[in-house]
């Protein structure tokens, strides 16, 4: 490797990282679907997928093949370019945000941090920005389908996502204030001191912010109880009513990729990221491989539990009505989020 320049090494390793993370994320998306179906099944007195492979583990593969082989319908009255563009926007925005997530401890190989595609000093804002671009996928899909249900669904989705983005962003301000940085690594480091007790969720006093984030995140990802845009009992399937085959699959994957992103952000911001929940109680691993893998294990575990929470909520609660959703977001979450910011900054100011 010595004949390569630093930049070339950086480039090669970056492409490698991107490829690996992309593959892992897409696999994770597929298996999140399976996880949801299994878990939901168990909560509802049924088995969930159990026929394809052991414990239904090959179900995502079968689903993928099925979706690939389906006929790709193109509605006659649709706005063709936008109709095709919309799922691409949705999926790519959902996947890009993973790029700034640090999912392990800093581990450098040839000067390149291996467990973080890019360590940006405004990582959090990048995630928020990309999420806000993802709205176009939904908005355009509904409009370009030229279907009334799709239009209604996308109107609902767009207004919901814009409204809850405010509460979401404001709920994160407390965390940012505590960390004094928008860089995700800094935010994680600010909670790494004493394991569980220095997490923003517990020790950091950001528990209110966490719940605001939780609700806003459910709304952002259009999941129950905020799944109005695709409320099958009202709008058939919402904005992706007209989509079939891989274009539908892209929306589907985008939804689950968004769930994973949201879970990652929650982990980073409130649950101490890749740090151990036991702080210094566990002995520092001596082997460098374990030292590299253990944080990833914690990270994945936290993301996994957050996803399970997501699914649990879906199995439990009914759906909001549109006006109730709006008043909940604007009249409850937003003021509480602002109060939380004021309280947090007062505490920080008084402590010096």
């Amino acid at each position, binding site marked *: 490797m010595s004949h390569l320049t630093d930049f070339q090494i950086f480039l090669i390793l970056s492409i490698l990282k991107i490829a690996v993370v992309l593959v892992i994320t897409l696999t994770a998306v597929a298996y999140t679907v399976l996880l949801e179906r299994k878990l939901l099944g168990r909560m509802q007195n049924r088995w969930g997928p159990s026929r394809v492979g052991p414990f239904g583990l090959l179900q995502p593969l079968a689903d993928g093949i099925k979706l690939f082989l389906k006929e790709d319908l193109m509605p006659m009255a649709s706005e063709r370019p936008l109709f095709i563009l919309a799922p691409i926007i949705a999926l790519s925005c959902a996947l890009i945000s993973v790029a700034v997530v640090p999912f392990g401890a800093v581990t450098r190989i040839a000067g390149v941090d291996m467990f973080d595609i890019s360590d940006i000093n405004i990582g959090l804002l990048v995630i928020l920005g990309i999420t*806000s671009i993802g709205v*176009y996928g939904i908005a355009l899909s509904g409009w370009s389908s030229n279907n009334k249900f799709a239009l209604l669904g996308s109107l609902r989705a767009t207004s919901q996502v814009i409204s809850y983005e405010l509460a979401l962003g404001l709920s994160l301000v407390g965390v940012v204030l505590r960390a004094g940085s928008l860089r995700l690594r800094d935010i994680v480091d600010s909670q790494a001191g004493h394991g569980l007790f220095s997490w923003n969720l517990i020790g950091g006093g950001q528990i209110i912010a966490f719940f605001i984030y939780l609700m806003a995140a459910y709304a952002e990802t259009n999941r129950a109880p905020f799944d109005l845009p695709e409320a099958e009992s009202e709008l058939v399937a919402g904005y992706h009513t007209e989509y079939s085959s891989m274009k539908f699959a892209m929306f589907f994957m985008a939804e689950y990729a968004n769930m994973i992103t949201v879970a990652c952000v929650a982990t980073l911001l409130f649950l101490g990221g890749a740090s151990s929940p036991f702080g210094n109680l566990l002995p520092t691993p001596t082997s460098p491989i374990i030292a590299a893998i253990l944080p990833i294990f914690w990270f994945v575990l936290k993301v996994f539990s957050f996803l399970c929470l997501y699914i649990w909520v879906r199995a439990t609660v009914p759906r909001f009505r549109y006006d109730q959703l709006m008043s909940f977001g604007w009249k409850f979450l937003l003021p509480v989020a602002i109060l939380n910011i004021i309280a947090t900054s007062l505490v920080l100011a008084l402590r010096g």
Partner: protein
Amino acid sequence: MQLALFIIFGLLAVAGAINFLLQRHPINSALSLIVVMMSLAVLYWSLGAEFLAAAQVIVYSGAVMVLFVFVVMLLNAGEEERTHGSRAAYFAGIPGATAIFCLLSFVFLTNGKAFGSTDLINHLTHTTNNIAEISQVLFRDLLLPFEVTSVLILVAILGAVVLARKEQ
């Protein structure tokens, strides 16, 4: 690298802007405008103003333009009819635009030094804190104008609500 980014996204911004003018369907124009906004964000970033870039994306592309698209969708605006425009625009517009373009280029090229320069190296290596600087300016040095602006926006919002409210 920076030059490459500048050329790519600068061209993209210009192309988007031209497309914005030429497209006949309002939603396509709105989308071109988003491309312009995003390219500008990248340009900001390459100049070391990453916070500004993020704000540009979140506020302009993520919120303002979504509302534009929203309105276009709701109003169901169809394709615009092509008009010949007013004759005055042809006679006065083209020479006027050329004149302004020349004037601006002249000013920028001759007085380039007077605009000062940014501390690009420190910004790109993150040694100076961009956000801290912006907040210093916004919330300490220019607090009063900042608050006055927000009141102004509030007034505008209230005005919009009053105008849009249905008569009971």
